[in-house]
């Protein structure tokens, strides 16, 4: 039976299919065809992306600048970017103290005392840069690589490239994502087959206690009755299949119902945090009102990682104060950091102790950083800054305890070993065993890539 690759991808019965699966099917059909599971041996099997919506400030967290402290209140001694989101004033020194941690002696601010303890596992990229200074464009850029066009998200590309390791769960799950500033585009499949889009669990406006996959449970009948109902439906489906003869799509539809039935038990089990020990809950801070919400999200991320979900995004977007302090930097950043610091450190140490950090790539960052110059009525805030900011990676084949690249003396522009968001995408794909130049999809007459026409793999950060 002939199944075109595209057709298989579209019709994949499990809904969370993969190029890998499609390759297996098609290689069965056409022996000799090369499978595309990965392009080279992977260093990581999955990604957890801790997304700090709003744009956390690099010079107040992981990019210490002594000169900024010295020149507080003075004008920036060089030009500001051609395109700025809004005007800013003079230099604003960080209100937080920095301390050196670990064997690496990397300086981390007092905003992140717990994450600081893990600094020897972190690979800080201090020279990140993007190109869009507005939330919407920048969110789209970091998630999809384009702030101009509708393109598949990073998670969708990875699901497309690698599929899932657990066919009863989606390959790409995003926990409490935000709807604003790109919304579903940030986890969408765009022109890739729809089944590669992320499965959202809840939204930023909901408590992580309420998250669940939509329609995962039937509230109208018991399990036995639903099984009987499904048997009836499937009997109808088989009759129909017989009435039209050989039809791959209808066969795969029958399979999709069976998988859905199994998912009904698998997904609630994965989300059942009650089965975790008290000490684990304490570690993640789910017992404390400040850290409970994000702590639960991180704990879910670990449970999904254990179960073979390929790409897990966890969004921190406190609906009152996102990481977006145009004013009142101190209050806003302190609150945000307090909510995420302990859960993130917990996730890192928990993954490590379970042996999962080796093949799980943890990625932390926002859509951009913030300006070293001040803003706001009290001159105590910072503007958006895509010109230079910090993201960090941990686990999954990257070197821990290093700082890669650098910004200028004040932390405004990335100047040394610059890493563009396209480069980050290329690097993440590479760590997963995918070549960003080869991971393509033909659409509207040409082959598309996550990195479009850019992207360099930053091999220097590999372990």
């Amino acid at each position, binding site marked *: 039976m002939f199944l*075109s*690759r595209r057709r298989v991808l*579209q*019709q*994949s*019965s*499990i809904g969370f299919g993969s190029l890998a699966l499609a390759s297996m099917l098609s290689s069965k059909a*056409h022996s000799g*065809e090369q499978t595309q599971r990965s392009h080279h041996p992977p260093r990581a099997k999955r990604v957890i992306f801790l997304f700090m919506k709003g744009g956390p400030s690099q010079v107040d967290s992981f990019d210490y600048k002594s000169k900024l402290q010295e020149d507080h209140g003075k004008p920036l001694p060089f030009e500001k970017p051609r395109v700025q989101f809004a005007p800013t004033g003079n230099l604003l020194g960080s209100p937080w103290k920095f301390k050196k941690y670990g064997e690496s002696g990397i300086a981390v601010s007092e905003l992140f005392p717990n994450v600081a303890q893990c600094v020897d596992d972190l690979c800080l990229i201090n020279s990140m840069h993007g190109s869009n200074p*507005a*939330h*919407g464009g920048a*969110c789209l850029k970091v998630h999809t690589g384009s*702030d*101009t066009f*509708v393109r598949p998200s990073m998670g969708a590309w990875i699901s497309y490239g690698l599929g899932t390791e657990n066919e009863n769960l989606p390959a790409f799950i995003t926990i409490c994502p935000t*709807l*604003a*500033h790109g*919304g*579903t585009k940030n986890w969408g499949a*765009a022109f890739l087959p*729809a089944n590669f889009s992320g499965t959202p669990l809840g*939204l*930023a406006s909901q408590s992580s206690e*309420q*998250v*669940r996959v*939509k*329609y995962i449970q039937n*509230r*109208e*009948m*018991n399990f036995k*009755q639903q099984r*009987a*109902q499904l*048997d*009836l439906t499937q*009997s*109808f*489906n088989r*009759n*129909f299949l017989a*009435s039209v*003869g050989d*039809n791959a799509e*209808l066969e795969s*539809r029958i399979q*999709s119902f069976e*998988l*859905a*039935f199994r*998912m009904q038990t698998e997904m609630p089990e994965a*989300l059942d945090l009650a089965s975790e020990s008290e000490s684990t809950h304490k570690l993640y801070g789910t017992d404390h009102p400040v850290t409970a919400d994000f702590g639960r999200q991180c704990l879910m991320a670990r449970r999904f990682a254990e179960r073979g979900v390929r790409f897990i995004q966890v969004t921190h*977007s406190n609906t009152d104060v996102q990481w977006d302090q145009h004013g009142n930097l101190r209050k806003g950043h302190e609150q945000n950091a307090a909510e995420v610091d302990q859960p993130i450190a917990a996730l890192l140490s928990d993954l490590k102790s379970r042996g999962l950090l080796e093949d799980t790539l943890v990625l932390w960052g926002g859509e951009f950083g913030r300006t070293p110059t001040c803003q706001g009525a009290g001159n105590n805030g910072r503007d958006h800054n895509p010109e230079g900011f910090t993201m960090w990676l941990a686990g999954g084949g990257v070197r821990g305890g290093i700082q890669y690249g650098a910004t200028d003396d004040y932390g405004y522009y990335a100047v040394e070993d*610059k890493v563009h968001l396209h480069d980050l995408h290329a690097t993440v794909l590479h760590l997963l065993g995918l070549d960003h130049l080869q991971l393509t999809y033909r659409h*509207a*007459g*040409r082959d598309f890539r996550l990195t479009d026409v850019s992207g360099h793999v930053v091999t220097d950060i590999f372990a």
Partner: protein
Amino acid sequence: MNRTGAVTSVVLLVLCSLTAFVKADETPSKVQEQPTAEEIRFFENKIRPLLATHCYDCHGEETQEGGLRLDTLAGMLQGGNAGPAMVAGKPDRSLISNAISYRDNDLRMPPDERLTDQQIKDLNHWIESGSPHPESGQVGHVRPTSTIDLEAGRKHWAFQPIVAPDVPQMESSIEPGDDKSSASTSSTRQVAHPIDAFVLADLKSQGLNPLPRADKSTLIRRATFDLTGLPPTIQEINAFLEDDSADAFHKVVERLLNSPHYGERWGRHWLDVARYADSNGLDENAAHGNAWRYRDYVVQSFNRDKPYDEFLVEQLAGDLLVPDREPTTGHEQLIATGYLVIGPKVLAEVDESKMEMDIVDEQVDTVGRGVMGLTLGCARCHTHKFDPIEHADYYALAGIFKSTKTMETFKLVARWNEVAIPNAEELSRQQAHEQLVAEKKEEIAQRVELAKREVIEKRAAEISPTDVEEAEKPEPDPVEEKEFSETAAAELKKLRDELKKLEEAAPEISHAMAVAEGTVADTAIHIRGSHLTLGETVARGFPRVLVGDHQPSIPEDRSGRLEFARWLTSRENPLTSRVMVNRIWRWHFGKGIVATVDNFGITGESPTHPELLDWLAARFIDDQWSIKEMHRHIMFSETYQRASHPSQIEDVEDRAEAVNDWAMLVKKDPGNRSYGRFGVRRLEAEAVRDAILATSGELDRTIGGPVINTPNRTLVFNHTSQDATAYESQRRSLYIPIIRNHLYDMFQLFDYSDASVLSGDRDSSTTSPQALFLMNSPFMNEMAESMAVRILECELTTEQRIARLFEEAYGRFPTETESSEVIQFLRYFEEDDSQDPAEFEVSIVSTENSSAEEESSSDSRSEVSSRLRAWRALCQSILSSSEFLYLR
């Protein structure tokens, strides 16, 4: 597989042939013929070392990143993938100058570190002086990578003129009298319908026999869903089954074409191509409060069978068709131009020029792929890599849209353009209001005058007689309001407050998203797509590969939209008709004659039946671009009416005969490329939902009108990610709000178009999340319950009820096996309910974390009898089954 390889090599071949046909007369760069010794010295001392140190590693003899080498003069002038690196004499139009300036975030060279100011100055100076180079005068004709050979390009099949081909002489595969609904009048085998003749000729050439016509109940279901997106009613099915006249099927098709639901179905197809949505999407998801007017315009246009050429001209240039309109007229033409406005825009883009060009690009891409089947957007940054569309062609078209006013303002947060479309009543209310405002303003002006006079009189009284002479010299100080008396100030404040209130109470006037003529100007080529590096200015015009030597002229004071629309819909245009008939074919058959319906370029698929496509395209124009006439051509063909499987063939002998033919078809043509049988396919998301609503008896058939509850231009959800859009409506799916970035989840599950980018070829997937929706959603439960309640209210036996449900859902009666299986299921379900009442309660309690939506659904078993629960489960099963969701 093999095929991909073949496509690649074809593409490569085409590329090679394009390169081979270098256009000899194009040498835009003015290269100095004889540089002076001093100029050469400057190059050798300053420029070559600089290039060698900073550039040759990646753009030299060994490596040519981006296809560019800078170690030869020819290399620089020819350029790489992004076009020429340098225009001699023009540093501001040279890519290399832009790259070293670090102005453009996306192109900074050398990548590691900016050159020194002196180095940049030197390089720019060198380009400005004509790039004197030791190789000057020796490079001959250099063809910049941005030019292509148009003559070679015109050979592509889609750019050839449409000529109606001769119809092959074939006889119908169906004996007259075989089928009472056929239009046969002759006593011998009839000559095939032209569509069938082309299809049969192809089938015969492969030694294949097509299946005969499907039985009548299959046909009416197919045709009814196809033309209206709704299932046929039992009455409609019976009427057709009982109609023995020769033209029974024709009557059905005519009835459906005249149904107001026809426009709802086919208008929606066009809305996929028009990337219709009720919100902006992208970054600032503002509500398109007036987009529905465009949607209704599209529906009405289909219902009235508006000729496609007129339909297109209105959408591209409706405003220009009614230049002297009164305020209350010409609305339809204005609303039509909403087509250009409803695209997604980055409204908070800080860089206004980038936003403007992004919006223009979105329009060029939409018109390019939607109407012309060309991926014109590919030529934004560089000459198209595959199709004969030059970089300049893109900006010739872009100039037309840039000269069009799509936006009211680009200032943060940007606003799209809307125009007032008052009806007579609104207009008179508005005029009355304006009168009141004018009167109030006049009253204020008079009061101010009075107060001023009071001040002047007061001043005069205060001046002592001795001051009088001196006071003659300077002009008296102008009176300021702060000098007014308290009474005057108070009265003025009152009047102004009244004015403010009055102005705020302006009567609402209907508005439409629409364009107008903007600042008319030609646009410069944006090198590498960046507005920061502009190249030559290009006259507004149409792609040269299509217009040949006769570029229609665009008046200096007009954008050129109307001229563009007229050119698109001219008889000579080889694309417009082909693209549209192929779309219509796609929507009837589930796949296009050209499979890549939005791409007729070199990387698109070739037509499976090129002559048929051309016959249809020529016919379409001859029929005055009538879409309904095209439906008739297609639906009256045997090709459309074929069975998909022998089991749908009425005549027992025919059925037996067809079994072998079918087996051959499946074996030799598994993809049904040759249309030997009708392809089974799933209903689209809207039809799935509408069919469920219709079958459950809950469908609200109200037509047209606004649908979103968010006021125009306000965000459908803010940073709190709470979306207030309501989807509870039981109206047809066409009237479900289309919120970009947060599509109604049922639509998303069933492969709805993205609504941000046009798509004429929706996917049809089968995924577990779809199954979960069908099994567990409150919507399915409610619909199943309505259906169950209705059937239980009928005075019927159990067997009769089951038969009725099958008839309503599938348009046929159940087999005995099916009937007994259903009875068994009902019995089991009810018994289980009575045996184990506790279990259900437990399963409810364990679902603590449920969303609000799912909690609101009807639940508690105590309220619903076991009998109803069992029938509800059965109805849900029927509504979830393949037979309900798929067309044969």
